[in-house]
């Protein structure tokens, strides 16, 4: 009998970490497949996504935010928005969810060997970048200078706070955090992420820039990257659209003639320029 690509595999929630509280809460869920064989054989590349199901509520596509070098689990970082994410936020350790994947294309980490990388993230957009950063750090010798530029609205809205504290202590990666609005105990940059990018002024020579975040931030980041001298095949981003099947059949996540679930979510700026379609 043919395999059913719509049927997820059961996974158990091992750990729930609250990254951001309040109205726009973000939590990171660590999940492990019930079947040990499946967990052993589940491999993916940085940038790929997985469909997480809450049985009875629905399923959503999330970027896998843990690095593929961590073989014992996968993590997704989720902001609470609608029916499924609300149910996921109410889940506890030990609960069963369905997971299927990995889907989509990935960051071209093989092609980027030997280059410097600049990661530019905003808000929850840091999730796929976290996967990429940790993967590259685990293979540090293959890559050059690393810079992370990350910002959120307020210091409360910053994700992965403890992990950034650890990253800041390291010597092999430069971290530049920012928040949009002035706060009393904030000593670092105050302003929007695209402006912080201009301040950090990474050199385009032999460098790849990867950016994820709200559409408006991506627009200005790309503008500023071009001002700094980056050309269109040095800039990469991830896009999102509403998805249902995740495997290129239901037709709804298309931008132009490409499906975000199948031909994305990673796109180079060169591809985006040619793509006609709403996003």
């Amino acid at each position, binding site marked *: *009998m*043919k*395999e*059913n*690509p*719509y*049927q*997820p595999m*059961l996974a158990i929630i091992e750990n729930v970490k609250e990254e951001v509280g309040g109205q726009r809460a973000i939590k990171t869920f660590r999940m492990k497949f019930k079947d040990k064989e499946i967990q052993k054989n589940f491999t993916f590349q940085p940038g790929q996504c997985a469909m997480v*199901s809450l*049985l*009875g*509520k*629905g*399923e959503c596509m999330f970027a896998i935010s843990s690095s593929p070098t961590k073989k014992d689990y996968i993590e997704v970082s989720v902001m609470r*928005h*609608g029916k499924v*994410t609300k149910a996921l936020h109410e*889940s*506890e350790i030990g*609960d*069963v969810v*369905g997971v299927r994947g990995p889907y989509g294309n990935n960051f071209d980490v093989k092609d980027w060997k030997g280059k410097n990388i600049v990661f530019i993230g905003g808000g929850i957009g840091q999730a796929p970048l976290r996967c990429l950063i940790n993967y590259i750090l685990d293979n540090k010798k293959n890559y050059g200078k690393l810079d992370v530029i990350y910002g959120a609205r307020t210091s409360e809205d910053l994700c992965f706070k403890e992990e950034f504290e650890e990253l800041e202590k390291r010597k092999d990666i430069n971290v530049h955090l920012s928040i949009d609005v002035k706060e009393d105990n904030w000593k670092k940059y105050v302003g929007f992420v695209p402006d912080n990018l201009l301040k950090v002024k990474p050199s385009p020579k032999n460098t790849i820039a990867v950016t994820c975040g709200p559409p408006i931030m991506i627009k200005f980041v790309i503008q500023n990257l071009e001002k700094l001298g980056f050309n269109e095949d040095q800039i990469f981003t991830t896009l*999102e*659209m*509403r998805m*249902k*099947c995740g*495997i*290129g*059949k*239901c*037709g*709804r*996540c*298309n931008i*132009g*003639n490409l499906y975000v679930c*199948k031909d994305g979510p990673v796109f180079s700026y060169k591809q985006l320029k040619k793509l*006609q*379609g*709403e*996003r």
Partner: protein
Amino acid sequence: MMNSYILLKEDLPKFIKELIDKYKVFAPVDDNDVTLFKEIKNPKEMNLKYNNSKLPPKSLLFCQTETLFKFTPGTKGKIQSPGIDNGKKAVFGIRPCDAKSFSIIDPVFKEDFEDPFYLSKRENLLLVGLSCTNPYSNCFCTSFKDSPASSKYVDILLTDIGNKYFVEVNGDKGKQIVKSKLFKPAAKTDEDKKNEVEKKAKDQIIRYQKTDGIAEKLDKIFENHFWKEVADKCLRCGACTYLCPTCHCFDIQDEATMTDGARVRIWDTCMIPEYTLQASGYNPRPERMNRMRNRVYHKYNYYPKNLGVIACVGCGRCIDNCPVNIDIIDVVNRAGEVKP
């Protein structure tokens, strides 16, 4: 002439009975003046006085509602795999345009991840075509160099040539069927009569859609105001998408009670605002213009770019049923003339 036979009209009920013995047979049935493909147990239930069925026969392969799997809901849930329908089926009376639509949407369900629900039904479906002798008000299959009497996409094709049917065979499945004693070899005069009937049907199709180079022409006019004019009168009713033989968009929903549930796949339409509505409230296609343009481009630009064929067969159902006369032939013809 090697692959041509004749079947006397009086033998048709016997042929249908032979099919019913071996397959689950679906044929055109009159349901309160609406012709639909339904399962028949007796040849008398068929109604062959029809132009085309209201709902295209894609509903036999790509069901309106399909259970993807069952589960026990909640935080300690379980999943049960569904059964896949492997039964042998046959559809009698499918028109060449609808049969072509199967070949057009096959790659969608086959590429990358194979969809077992569609593919197992497709493998086990025998297509017994029936040529059009009286094309309907808005048919335009000839615009795609197709014919109302083409055997290209079916297993066997019957054409009404008076008191008998001219039968053409296409492929192994068809060869098995014509082994029956009811089929006799065709004469040259039969073939001539079939060509005459085919030409008469083709001549009745006046409406024509200019599709030469349409994908390239559409590339140049994406931002043009033309699409707003076309979409202003659209009621976003979705009737066009539900009746289109090549539309394949679907929605997936979990339907559960406290104790059990199923994940189902149902037809969806790209014309409603909720199609791309994201949980944050942002909608990349908020206006009817965006969705109308996306639909036309999907059929005449994206599909040709990805799979090499225009995703329209010229059945005319969308034109017949649109309450506000949005006419795809007219839209594409005018789009071809818009100055970029």
